[in-house]
């Protein structure tokens, strides 16, 4: 019954899993924010996530070491990022389309490896919940914020760190200048190529971690196409959040809370078509884009390859 939703236990449950489920969105979208701030649209996030997700899961399954799994996802993500960087920075490939190529590559590759190396769906024991002393004992709040696994905490730590790096450091200034006016940045001695390599590889790493967070921390399984569009949403969240980490966080929470609500609706077998509930965040995203995009400006050099004029 609908009234079941409003008991304290259920509300706490919805919020706690909402916070948890926002993790992959956060890693992937913060990584994408760095890329877009430097003028590169990486549409291959989904592919990077899938490969990272598989790599982390497979290594964790075979070695029993979750950290080694996470490290593998980081390496895989970095390599995918490196390839993407070469293609966009050196070869000036059209970013929207090459991203689709990397998506298809990751989709096919992760499926191929899954079928060849595993064959059946298995489970691992993922990162355990860490109960922060005292804070996790606070009724409600403790369960929602202070009884999560390590990757959730790190994801939330990433938001202020990303804000700080982008806005308060020389590196951030370089990233932003390369994304706004690469010619000016270049004439001041900033290497546009090096900055973009850095942001794209960082984006790849964070996408890999995003994938790993699904396979070895949240769901603890790997399946074909398990991200099912989450990587594309992450790209949209960057626009949604107007290229600010805090805005990205808001968007990620919107998606994850509605997802978690919908999961609970199913668990409690409340007669609301869950398909329509799942649809809502996408509709809301489009509406938010309509409402904000005309007021917020994208980085000027976004999707434009840089070529030094003669």
């Amino acid at each position, binding site marked *: 019954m609908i009234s079941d939703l409003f008991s304290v236990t259920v509300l706490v449950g919805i919020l706690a899993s909402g916070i948890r489920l926002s993790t992959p969105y956060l890693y992937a979208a913060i990584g994408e924010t760095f890329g877009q701030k430097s003028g590169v649209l990486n549409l291959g996030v989904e592919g990077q996530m899938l490969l990272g997700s598989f790599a982390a899961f497979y290594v964790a399954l075979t070695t029993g070491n979750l950290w080694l799994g996470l490290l593998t996802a980081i390496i895989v993500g970095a390599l995918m990022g490196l390839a993407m960087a070469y293609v966009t920075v050196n070869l000036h490939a059209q970013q929207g*389309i090459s991203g689709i190529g990397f998506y298809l590559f990751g989709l096919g590759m992760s499926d191929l490896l899954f079928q060849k190396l595993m064959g059946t769906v298995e489970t691992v024991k993922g990162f355990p919940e860490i109960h922060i002393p005292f804070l996790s004992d606070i009724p409600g709040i403790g369960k929602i914020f202070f009884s999560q696994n390590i990757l959730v905490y790190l994801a939330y730590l990433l938001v202020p760190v990303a804000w700080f790096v982008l806005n308060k450091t020389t590196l951030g200034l370089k990233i932003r200048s390369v994304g706004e006016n690469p010619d000016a940045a270049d004439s001041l001695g900033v290497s546009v190529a090096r900055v973009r390599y850095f942001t794209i590889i960082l984006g790849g790493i964070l996408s890999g971690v995003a994938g790993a967070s699904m396979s070895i921390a949240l769901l603890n399984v790997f399946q074909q196409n398990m991200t099912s569009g989450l990587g594309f949403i992450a790209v949209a969240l960057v626009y949604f959040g107007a290229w600010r980490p805090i805005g990205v966080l808001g968007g990620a929470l919107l998606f994850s809370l509605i997802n978690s609500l919908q999961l609970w609706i199913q668990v409690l077998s409340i007669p609301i078509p869950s398909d329509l509930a799942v649809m809502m965040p996408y509709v809301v995203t489009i509406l938010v884009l309509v409402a904000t995009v005309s007021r917020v400006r994208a980085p000027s050099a976004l999707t434009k390859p840089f070529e030094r004029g003669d």
Partner: protein
Amino acid sequence: MTKIFQSEWMSHLVDALLPVFATLAALIIGAIMLLVLGVNPIDAYAALWDGAFGSSNAFAETLVKATPLLLVALGICISFRGDVINIGGEGQMIIGAILATWVGLNFTDLPGWLVITIAMLAGFFGGAVWGGIPGFLKAYFNVNEILSTVMMNAIAVQLMNFLLRGPMIDPAQAEAASQIPQTARLLDAFRLARLMPPTRLHFGAVIAVVLAGLVYILLWRTTLGYRIRAVGQNPHASRYAGIQVSRYMVLALLLSGAFAGLAGAVQVYGVNYRMITDGSASGFTGSAGFNGIVAALFGGLHPIWSIPASILFGALLVGANKMQRIVQVPSALIIALNGLVVVFVVSSEILRKQRQRKRLAVAKRDDELPPSGDKQIQQAEAGS
């Protein structure tokens, strides 16, 4: 003179062959991957070839697979030429299929040819709406079309799941305990004609090829097509030339969606005769909404060249199944290789541009030479 002429001709030929090189490169990487997996690549590719072209039935299946790819690719030719990127083929196919199916399930009294015609138009219309919305949002609210089309994909999938589990579910399934999310079957009279029984090759392939010709005419022989391409090449200049840029952006995406919607309708009326969902988009589309982009790019965004390109990728997808059976390599390998083909094709653009620049530079240098008898021949050649 002949030397310049030859090298320029060669250079154009190399440009035209770039996608072929890109595919070969992807296949070579695929061969290395196969070796790593402990499979003889020659055996694997032989099985692939056999699965795609080995018998008349295999070839028919290839064409069946190529049909939706070509229809989506035609739409992609229009939108990418207009510099709007349509990633929403999957959703547009679904919406087109839903409307077309609804027509077939509700007008059971009408003659078959009429229902098929209305259904195809409904598919076209549904896709047009689903592509037109992102087009409208881009033109008038500056919403990035890549994002909105991706969102529209997700919305379409959920809409399909909702309709097939609820309002449009097969009455038999609604009563049965299994509750398989599928619609009722279309009447036999509403099926697109089979061209080569007993194979599944159907009339949709003819529709797609005819439309390829029409899209060519649209893009290069009509004002509408000229304007779409002009907006794509230089929106600022087009605006100064008095073209209403935003209107043509909407139109490019709308038409692009319409062709994908038609692809969805053709899948229902030519292959499945009903809609069924496994919860994902690719469960219905077979990822044709994405692979159509690959085919269009491979065909150089040219509607006619998209025909062989679609057949090639149809062949790869069909052959992959046989490869999976014979040498136990998951067909997912082909999806990964498709991705590499896309990356290589867009990456090789730089080579084309570099050579184009070199050609221009050569032409310019020759122009600066003192006039001589050869000059006129040169100019004649340059003009041809």
